[in-house]
C-alpha cells in the first residue's frame, strides 16, 4: 500500500527509515539502482550511435531499465545484444531523469560475460586480449621496430582476423621507439618542484606506448605554469575492460591506480589525465562500480589535463597572448569528453589562438569506441557510425584532425587519412618556449 493511501501510519522523518539499505550495492550485479527513475521518454535511444545504424540493436533503454524489469518478472538471462553496446556512455548525458544507464550496461555486460559467455570461445579470448591491451603493449614496445613491422604485415593481419576476430581492415598503431616512461626516467623526473601546485599524471597506455609526445607536451605545459608533475606507477584505467564486461580485470587495475595515487592525493596532488576515457574511468566508472578505500577521493581529485588548467590558471588569457604558425584543425569531441562536459573546451580556447582555425566536426560519435571497432563483426557498424564525422572532416577547412581520445584519433585517421593531434600538443606549441 502506498503511503498516500494511509498517510497517518507513515512518518517520513523517522530515523529508522532507510530506503537505500534494502538494496544490495552495485557490485552485486544488480541492475536496480536508478531503474525506477526511467519514465521511458527515449531520450537515451535518440542519442545512441549504435541504435542509429544497427536496426537490430534494441538501444540503451532496453539494455538498462527494461532489462531490469524483465529480470524482476523471472530470472531472465541478460540479452546478448548487450555486447553490441559500445560503451560510448552518451545515454548518461541524455537522460533527463539521471538514470545511471552506463553503469547498468556495465553491470549487465559483466553478468552476461560471467554467466553466458563460453570462456573458451574465440569471442571471449579475443575480447580478453583486446581488453588487456596494456599487457600486449608492454611486451610489444620492448622491441617496437620489430613489433611495428610484424603487426603492419598484411599476412599477420589476416591471421589476426581469421583466428582472433580482430579486423584486418585497420592498421595497428605504431609503438614509439621510446615510451613516455623511458623518456621521463631519462629526463630525471620533474624539472619543477612545488609545494602548492602539484599534479600526478595518469598517462594511460596509449600516451605511454604509442604517442609519448602527448605526455611530454603535457609535462612541459604544466611545468611552464609552475606545476610539479609526478608520474606514479600505474596500470590500465580499466576502460577497455568495462567495455568488454571484464569487471574482475578492471577491478584489479582500479586497485593498482588507487594504491599508487591515493597517498599522493593526501600530499596535495591532484590527478590529471590526457586521455578522456582514462579521466572518465577514474572520475565516474570507478566509484560507480567498485567500492574500495580511497576510490571516491581519487574520483573527485581527477581532472582532464586541459580542464585542470582552464579551472586553475588563466588559460584563456595565456592563449589570447600567444600565437602559432598558421594551421587549421578539424576537431572531434570524443563521447567520453562530452560526458565530462569537455566537448567544447578545445574549440572554445583555440578559437582565440592567433594562427589557428579550428572547427568542430559535429556531435556524432567517431564509431570506434575503444576496442569495439577492432572487432571483426563490429567493424562495419563502427565505420557506419563514423561516416558522418568523416564527411564533416572532409568538408572542414582543417586538414589536420584534433581530438583527445586515442582510439577516436585512430578512427579519424583511418577514415580520412589525416594526421591527428592532441590539444595538449597545440597547447605546448602555443605556450612553451
Amino acid at each position, binding site marked *: 500500500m502506498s503511503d498516500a493511501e494511509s*498517510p497517518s501510519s507513515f512518518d*517520513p522523518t523517522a530515523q529508522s527509515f532507510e530506503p537505500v539499505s534494502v538494496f544490495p550495492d552495485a557490485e552485486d550485479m544488480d541492475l536496480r539502482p536508478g531503474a525506477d527513475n526511467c519514465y521511458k*521518454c*527515449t*531520450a537515451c*535511444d*535518440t*542519442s545512441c550511435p549504435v*541504435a*542509429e545504424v544497427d*536496426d*537490430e540493436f*534494441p*538501444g540503451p533503454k*532496453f539494455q538498462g531499465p527494461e532489462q531490469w524489469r524483465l529480470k524482476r518478472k523471472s530470472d531472465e538471462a541478460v540479452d546478448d545484444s548487450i555486447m553490441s553496446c559500445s560503451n560510448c556512455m552518451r545515454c548518461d*548525458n*541524455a*537522460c*533527463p531523469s*539521471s538514470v545511471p544507464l552506463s553503469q547498468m550496461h556495465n553491470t549487465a555486460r559483466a553478468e552476461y560475460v560471467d554467466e553466458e559467455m563460453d570462456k573458451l570461445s574465440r569471442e571471449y579470448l579475443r575480447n580478453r586480449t583486446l581488453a588487456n591491451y596494456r599487457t600486449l603493449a608492454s611486451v610489444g614496445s620492448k622491441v617496437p621496430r620489430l613489433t611495428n613491422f610484424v603487426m603492419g604485415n598484411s599476412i599477420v593481419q589476416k591471421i589476426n582476423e581469421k583466428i582472433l576476430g580482430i579486423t584486418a581492415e585497420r592498421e595497428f598503431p605504431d609503438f614509439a621507439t621510446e615510451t613516455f616512461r623511458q623518456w621521463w626516467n631519462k629526463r630525471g623526473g620533474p624539472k619543477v618542484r612545488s609545494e602548492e601546485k602539484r599534479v600526478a599524471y595518469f598517462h594511460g597506455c596509449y600516451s605511454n606506448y604509442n604517442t609519448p609526445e602527448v605526455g611530454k607536451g603535457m609535462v612541459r605545459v604544466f611545468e611552464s605554469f609552475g606545476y610539479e608533475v609526478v608520474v606514479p606507477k600505474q596500470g590500465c584505467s580499466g576502460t577497455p575492460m568495462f567495455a568488454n564486461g571484464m569487471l574482475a580485470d578492471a577491478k584489479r587495475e582500479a586497485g593498482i591506480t588507487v594504491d599508487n595515487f591515493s597517498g599522493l592525493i593526501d600530499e596535495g596532488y591532484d590527478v590529471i589525465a590526457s586521455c578522456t576515457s582514462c579521466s572518465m574511468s577514474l*572520475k*565516474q566508472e570507478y*566509484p560507480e562500480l567498485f567500492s574500495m578505500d580511497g576510490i*571516491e577521493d581519487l*574520483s*573527485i*581529485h581527477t*581532472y582532464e589535463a586541459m*580542464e585542470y588548467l*582552464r*579551472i*586553475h*590558471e*588563466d*588559460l*584563456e588569457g595565456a592563449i589570447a597572448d600567444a600565437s602559432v604558425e598558421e594551421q587549421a584543425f578539424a576537431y572531434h569531441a570524443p563521447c567520453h569528453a*562530452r*560526458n*565530462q*562536459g*569537455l*566537448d*567544447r573546451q578545445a574549440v*572554445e580556447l583555440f578559437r582565440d589562438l592567433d594562427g589557428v582555425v579550428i572547427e568542430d566536426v559535429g556531435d556524432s560519435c567517431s564509431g570506434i569506441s575503444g576496442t569495439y571497432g577492432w572487432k571483426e563483426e563490429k567493424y562495419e557498424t563502427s565505420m557506419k557510425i563514423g561516416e558522418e564525422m568523416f564527411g564533416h572532416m572532409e568538408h572542414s577547412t582543417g586538414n589536420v584532425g584534433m581530438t583527445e581520445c586515442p582510439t577516436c584519433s585512430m578512427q579519424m585517421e583511418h577514415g580520412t587519412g589525416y594526421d591527428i593531434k592532441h590539444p595538449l600538443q597545440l597547447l605546448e606549441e602555443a605556450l612553451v618556449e
Partner: protein
Amino acid sequence: MAIEEDVIVIGGGIAGSIAALSAADTGAQVRLVTHKKSTLRHASGLIDVLGYTDGESGPVHDPFTSLDGLPEEHPYSLVGESAIRGGLEIFDTVTDGAYSGAHTDQNALVTTSGGAIKPTARYPTSAAAGLVSDDRSMLIVGFRSLTDFNGELVADHLAAAGVPFEVNGAEIEVPGNYRADARVTRIANALDLNKDLSYNGRTLPAREAFAEAIKPHLGTADRVGVPALLGDDHADDVRADLERSLGVAVFEIPMGPPSYPGLRLEDLLFDALDDAGVRISDGNPAVGYETAADGDTLESITIDRRGREIPYHAEQFILATGGLVGKGINSDRNGVYEPVFNCYVPHSDDRYQWFSEDAFGEHPFATFGVPIDEHCQPLTAEGKTEFSNLRAAGGVIGGVDPTAEKSKSGVSLATGYAAGREAGEAI
C-alpha cells in the same frame, strides 16, 4: 578567476537559449550551462503564446488582445507585450523558414496527436498543411506498431470537434522489416537516409515505399497527415518527396517523445547560439552559488563536474532551468524548492494541498515556481529580490498554469527575452 563571463545562463531549453541570444545581442559575453538534454525532446515543438484564458470560453483568437484580461502577477503582465514580441522576433529569426505563423498575430489551429486542436502562435512549416481552419479534405495515417498514435482515432476526434472538412483515418503497416518494438527513431532514420526497404515483395527506397503504402487509402483527400517522424536532418526533402509521389499536401502531426519537431528546434537554437558566439557548457549540473560579502550579489555559480565543484564567475545570472518536468523546480516530502539558488517557491506546507482531487481540476502544483518582479528578478517571501544580479526565465517561474492556458513557450520567449536583455544591459 579562470572561468569568467559577463552573463551566465543556466538551462538549455527555449527560455535559456532565447535569454542567451537576447543577452548576446546586447554585446555581452555569454555562457550557457546546461545539464542533461533539454525537455525539447519531449515537447511538441509548437510555440503557443496564449491559447485559453479564464475569461473566454473558447480558444483565444489573438493572444495580444487577450493580455489585458490576465492577472497582474502573470509573467506577461509583468514583462509586457513588448517582451513577448521581442522573444518572438528572436525566435522568428532563428527559425527562419522552418516555422510558420509570423505573418499574423492571430492563433493558428493546429492538429495534435490526440486529435485535439491547439491554438498556437508559431508552428513547424511541416505542420502547416494541417491547419484546421483550412477546408481541404484530410486523411490521417497512423502506423500499426506505433501505439502512441492512431490515425482513425485522430480522424474521429477531429470530426467530432466539427472541423469544416471531410476527415478520414487509416492505420497501415510500416513498410520495411523492423523488430516488434520498432521505434519512431528507426522509421525517421530510414526516411531521412531514404534507405532501401522491403514493401509488398519489392525493395523500394523508404520514401517511395511509404508513398505506396499510403496511396490505397488516399481516396479524395487533398492532404495527408502523419505522425511527426518524416526524417531528421533532411525532413524537408522527405516531405517534398512524399508530396510529389502522392500528389497531395503532406503534413506532420507533433507527437510525444522522442519528438522530432522538438529535436529539430533544439538544433536550430543551438546553431544560433554558436553563431552568436555564446559559449556552451553541457553535461554538468549547477548545484550552488557564492555571493559577495553583502550576501546579496552573486559572484559565481557552482558546477558539479562529477564531484568536483567548480565556480563559474559572471556579473549577471539567469535561471532558466525549467519547471517540474525539467527539474528546475523539485519537491520532496518536506516541500517544494528551487534547487540551485533555493529561491522562494510559494506552496502549502501540507503536501496533500498540492493537488486537486479532480484529475482535470485546478492543481496547485501546476503553478509552482518562483515569483518574479517586472525585471524578471526572483522575489523572496517578503517580496524583495533574492539576489541583485539574478533573473529568471521560462518554466521555473511560477504563478501561472502554462499547460492549461497554453502559454508555456510564450512565457519562455517573453521572459527569456526580457531577462537576457536586462542582464546584458546591466554589464
